[in-house]
């Protein structure tokens, strides 16, 4: 187990380095640098040169890259020139709101998705199965921003049940969390359905029945745990895209999180902020994947055996 975690951590560090470097490259490939955006179209050449010098943008790219790597290692992403505060502070200030939103959405999606998936997968081809599979496919195909806008129209503007924008109260959380949860629920339901349906055909399920267990006991005692392995893997991987989805949803609902801030930071070429936020998100995704691996190793003794080799 320790070796498994150690190896995955090492891979995680390499991945973070990759993300950090990719952010560095992409941000410099984008047209217009920080100085042009900050000073506006009326800036003189002297002003631009002075600001570029102050920001270190006149240095050779390799020097900039190494400086940047050093800063990342010490978690110093520099100052956000828009906020005038250290980028890490700004990012961490926004982080809890995003965590609240994604965790709520993930919990809704996992609970609903598991229940629907098990109900569908226990009897493949049944009416319940066909209903769940069709609805899940449909929900996965609808763009979340459209769902968000429809929710605002119906539940916020027409029915006035929930506030349409902003954050702070539980009421503010409902619409964005549900919007974000919908495609993820559909995904979890589909994966669970497939896994349960496949496990039901396994020989050991017949063995369980031969012991006189009821269908519920068979499902709870033998099918569920074995079906969870692919579900946990996919959920672990897809939680990352949930954060990506949060960027859009936060913008739709003006949710004061990392996502809406990141969109603004990219528009403003606020390098420090973009880098800090991206690295933080990358770290989260890697930690979540690691957690999924650990959970799976707990679920399946054969994975533990593999890790020992």
């Amino acid at each position, binding site marked *: 187990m320790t070796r498994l975690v150690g190896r995955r951590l090492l891979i995680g560090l390499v991945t973070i380095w990759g993300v950090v470097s990719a952010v560095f490259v992409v941000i410099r490939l984008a047209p217009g640098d920080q100085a042009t955006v900050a000073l506006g179209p009326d800036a003189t050449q002297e002003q631009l040169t002075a600001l570029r010098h102050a920001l270190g943008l006149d240095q050779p790219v390799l020097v900039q890259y190494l400086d940047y790597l050093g800063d990342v290692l010490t978690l110093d992403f520099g100052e956000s020139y828009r906020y005038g505060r250290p980028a890490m502070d700004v990012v961490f200030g926004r982080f809890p709101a995003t965590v609240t939103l994604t965790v709520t959405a993930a919990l809704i999606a996992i609970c609903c998705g598991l229940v629907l998936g098990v109900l569908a997968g226990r009897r493949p081809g049944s009416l319940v199965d066909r209903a769940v599979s069709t609805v899940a496919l449909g929900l996965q195909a609808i763009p979340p921003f459209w769902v968000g806008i429809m929710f605002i129209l119906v539940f916020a503007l027409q029915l006035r049940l929930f506030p349409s924008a902003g954050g702070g109260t539980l009421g503010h959380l409902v619409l964005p969390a549900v919007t974000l949860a919908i495609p993820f629920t559909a995904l979890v339901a589909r994966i669970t359905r497939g896994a349960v349906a496949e496990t039901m055909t*396994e*020989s*050991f399920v*017949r*063995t*369980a*029945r*031969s*012991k*006189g*267990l*009821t269908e519920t*006991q068979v499902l709870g*005692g*033998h099918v569920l*745990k*074995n079906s969870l392995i692919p579900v946990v893997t996919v959920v672990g991987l897809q939680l990352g895209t949930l954060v990506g989805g949060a960027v859009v949803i936060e913008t739709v609902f003006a949710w004061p999180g990392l996502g809406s801030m990141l969109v603004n930071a990219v528009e403003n070429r606020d390098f420090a902020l973009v880098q800090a936020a991206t690295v933080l998100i990358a770290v989260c995704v890697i930690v979540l994947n690691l957690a999924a691996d650990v959970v799976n190793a707990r*679920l*399946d*003794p*054969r994975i533990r*055996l593999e890790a020992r080799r």
Partner: protein
Amino acid sequence: MTDRPPTALLDVEDLEVVLAAGATTGTVLDRISFSVDAGRTTGLIGESGSGKTMTAMALVQLLPAGARTAGHVWWREEDLLGARARRVRQVRGREIAVIFQDPLQALNPTQTVGRQIGEIPRRDGLSRDAVRAKVLELLDRVGIPDPEQRIDAYPHELSGGQRQRVMIAMALAGEPRLIIADEPTTALDVTTQARVLALIAGLREREGTALLLVSHDLRVMANVADDLVVMYAGRVAERGPARAVLDSPRHPYTRALANNVPSVRTRSAIARPLPGAPANPFDRPAGCAFHPRCPLVTDRCRTETPRLRELEPGRFSACHLAEEVTP
């Protein structure tokens, strides 16, 4: 029903199983009748596809989804085929237990063997310590060395022979009156086969449990079975006391089987395959299903399906020419 022998523990009467494969349906089991007496070993033998496993699974209603059954499975004066699902579940494991073919597939990979063996006692409400003590005792009884260590092992951590012993311990856990063993030694290597077989035979003697042994291996049967039911293409070809059936077959199919197994009848070391292909229960030849491969075939065999008839007390054959079959 009136001619049911009073000692029979299990009496299968005209069992039929119909399976659907796409648009076509097939009567994979056609009027199977045989009985298992208390404390005896009954062997169910036939080539693959003859329906022996299907028969075994039909007894405890563990058939694939969509299978339809007809006939009677009399279990101690009670028809299991007509029983409620709840009653069938009570019978499973606690009255009729099953030992499955491939223990690696048939055991849950994510549970320790101790948990799987102890499942019935645990669900019966025994305390943790009592369940553990019972499982340890069972592991010891089936000859697993070092039960204290093995009880917490997962199936993949055991050898093939030990896994099959675990399956046997699991079957014993519900203290059944009948154990169905479906090809219990097929997945094992030859030396392990002999040991597991000796264990099964020994258990039957010590516990007085009846055994229904499903196998394609005539040598296994010759060693263990008291009675034999020979199946061909989803029908019973012949049945009777094992020694008598093997020594003087009353069906050309049984004779062909016996003559083709080295250690039973001939001096050759290698089993000769039976000429021709086994009949497919979905597309059974008219008349006697064995007629395309039969050396004694007559015109009657091609048109008229022979019924299983009693030649002498305890000896049944489904061959028009049963009296003319010579060893």
